[in-house]
């Protein structure tokens, strides 16, 4: 994908009402970037693409040419986004593979892009271990050496074979294997965290805030005690955790700073992922022109923790489209917190449009691994890369203990039917692995009809 360097910029999108493909434009309006298109049947459709035009331009400098996968899976036929798996036009390999092992869940959250739940939906499914193994094999075939995979759902921890599935991912040599969970089984089953520890699994724990109102609005239940117990069990077992917060306008925007403060203090937690709510599946009513993007999330965090963060501490992650994900690493010693970009001129290493020589290739490679969708805080690889960066820029060895934790903070804006921008999608590096072995870019899976298709296919065949 060529870097976008001006607005308006032409792209393609879809109609959120009828799903047909449409020519679209990114435009600047009042200092924000809007995605605009016209459906012959449903008229003018607009959604906020990025909350700050200047920051949008700034992020484009991080548009790195994508890396090719080993294997492409489908042919170009109807055009993006209708030819997924990874088709010849896709501009990036898959940094993070996702396998949704089931649709069943032990919660019925009002917010769920996967539209999962406790009821026996007519189209629900639960994959077998053999299916998951063949999907992992397909991922390895496509990627060569995959970096990261996440087992998700539904609620994957209630799948009776989940530990075998996680073990199968580890057995294929994938360095980062994550379990995306609401934490209920972790809290209730004292054997679960130790079993995850034995396998070397990183937990991606839904964690939206602390207020009752937040829990009720997003999860439909007060889960604070369950989250706390799940985390304490992870800490006791030595399982690393990233907190994943679904963030919605007027619900929990005000809790972002408190989540980070809680995270840096808790021994199990090595990172926080803020994800603006994707308005697909189940979600509250929303205004597509007043939704949250990474800009609003980062701004709110900085307003809530001004002594620790400011907006330019967050770096546009270059493996995907640079407005999809912004990240930073924090050095925290129990008192003060210093964001890594204050200590390293990241732009000199990762700003791809600037015509400057990279000062140190090892540091550049380590930073590129750190600012990637395949990275998580607290892992050995993250610690090693931070050490390489620290050494390369002359930071003292004593910093190793502080940096080893590698606390990562991410804002990740996934797309939905309203915000789908084919220009971004072609660079997507988070892939939904489906049972026939295709890897479907995550946002296409959610927004371009693939989720419904796969669910219909799988739900129809009772395994």
């Amino acid at each position, binding site marked *: 994908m060529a870097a976008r360097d001006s607005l308006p910029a032409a792209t393609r999108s879809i109609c959120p009402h009828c799903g047909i493909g449409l020519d679209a434009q990114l435009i600047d309006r009042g200092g924000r970037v809007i995605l605009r298109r016209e459906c012959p049947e449903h008229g003018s459709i607009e959604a906020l693409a990025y909350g700050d035009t200047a920051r949008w331009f700034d992020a484009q400098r991080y548009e790195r040419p994508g890396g090719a996968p080993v294997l492409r899976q489908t042919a170009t036929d109807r055009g993006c986004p209708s030819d997924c798996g990874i088709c010849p036009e896709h501009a990036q390999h898959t940094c993070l593979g996702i396998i949704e092992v089931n649709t069943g869940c032990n919660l019925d959250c009002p917010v769920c892009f996967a539209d999962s739940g406790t009821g026996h939906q007519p189209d629900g499914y639960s994959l077998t271990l053999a299916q998951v193994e063949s999907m992992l094999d397909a991922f390895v075939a496509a990627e060569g050496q995959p970096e990261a995979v996440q087992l998700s759902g539904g609620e994957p921890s209630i799948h009776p074979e989940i530990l075998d599935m996680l073990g199968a991912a580890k057995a294929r040599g994938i360095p980062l294997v994550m379990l995306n969970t609401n934490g209920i089984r972790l809290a209730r089953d004292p054997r679960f965290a130790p079993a995850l520890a034995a396998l070397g699994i990183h937990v991606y724990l839904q964690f939206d805030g602390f207020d009752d109102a937040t829990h009720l609005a997003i999860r439909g239940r007060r889960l604070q005690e369950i989250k706390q117990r799940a985390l304490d069990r992870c800490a006791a077992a030595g399982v690393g955790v990233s907190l994943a917060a679904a963030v919605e306008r007027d619900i929990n925007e005000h809790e972002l700073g408190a989540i980070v403060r809680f995270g840096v203090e808790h021994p199990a937690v090595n990172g926080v992922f803020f994800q603006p709510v994707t308005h697909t599946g189940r979600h509250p009513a929303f205004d597509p022109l007043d939704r949250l993007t990474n800009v609003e999330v980062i701004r709110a965090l900085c307003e809530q923790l001004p002594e620790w963060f400011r907006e330019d501490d967050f770096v546009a992650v270059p493996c995907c489209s640079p407005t999809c994900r912004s990240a930073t690493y924090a050095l925290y010693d129990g008192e003060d917190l210093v964001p890594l970009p204050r*200590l390293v001129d990241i732009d000199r290493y990762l700003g791809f449009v600037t015509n400057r020589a990279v000062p140190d290739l090892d540091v550049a490679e380590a930073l590129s691994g750190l600012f990637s969708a395949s990275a998580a805080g607290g892992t050995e690889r993250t610690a090693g890369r931070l050490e390489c960066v620290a050494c390369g820029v002359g930071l*003292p060895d004593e910093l190793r203990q502080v940096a080893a934790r590698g606390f990562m903070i991410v804002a990740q804006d996934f797309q939905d039917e309203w915000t789908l921008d084919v220009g971004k999608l072609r660079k997507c590096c988070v892939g939904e692995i489906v049972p026939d072995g295709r890897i479907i870019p995550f946002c296409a899976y959610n927004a371009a009809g693939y989720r419904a298709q796969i669910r219909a296919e799988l739900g129809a065949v009772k395994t």
Partner: protein
Amino acid sequence: MTRSLPDLSPLDLETDPKGCCARLYESDAVRWLLDGELHPGGDRLTHRLAGLAGIERGQRVLDIACGSGATALLLARELECEVVGVDLGTRAIEQAVAAASAAALEGRVRFVVGDAEELRFADAGFDVALSECSLCTFPDKRRAIAEMTRVVRPAGTVAIADVTADLNALPAQLRSAAARVACVADARSADEYASLLRDAGWENVAIETHDDDLQGMVDRVEARLRVARMLAPPGEQRDRAAEALLLARMALDAIVRGDLGYALIAARRTGC
């Protein structure tokens, strides 16, 4: 390679004058804090200063308070200038000599230990006298400028890059002896520097402000001081880091208010 947190005791800035300043800037602690960029804007603003002053290929340049010689070497390498660097710090001069030798530029650059207020050079021997981020630290600025003026030929140039300050608006801590060596306490406004130059007979004084570069530099120092405070053993070392951090934060506030900044100043004489 192991690299430990440097000894922070040089950050004890209570005892003053020039000698201390030179020692401070050649200490490992300050080099580490500045991360190799010894003045705001680094090479980029040095290029800009050379442009503003109209330094020409092959000219004879005196670099006053040259530190470990980065600017002198840059001018020798890129503009084939013949440069003499002078600095009070003996260790800095040793490093500069070694760097010149490593860059095979000994033929064009020479480094000597010396005092800016008493330059041991003949009158009118240079085309340009250059001072980056050092005039602010000299106790007697008139005298330093008089010396620069004396050693430059009648139709020559002075090129100054320096911290600028509205001293009356700065908090007391930033006007203390401690802050003098950090280029703040005895800085002047760009207009004051300009009038000192005019008083010394210079005309066509051009000023360019680059406050953002100073902010970027102090910001990086602030972050490294926080790291130092995290890592230093409790007691004196950590106190040094904490005190310096306080000054850095006051400086950042002052920059934001517009009371502290950075400027490039060039002046010429049409000859007499």
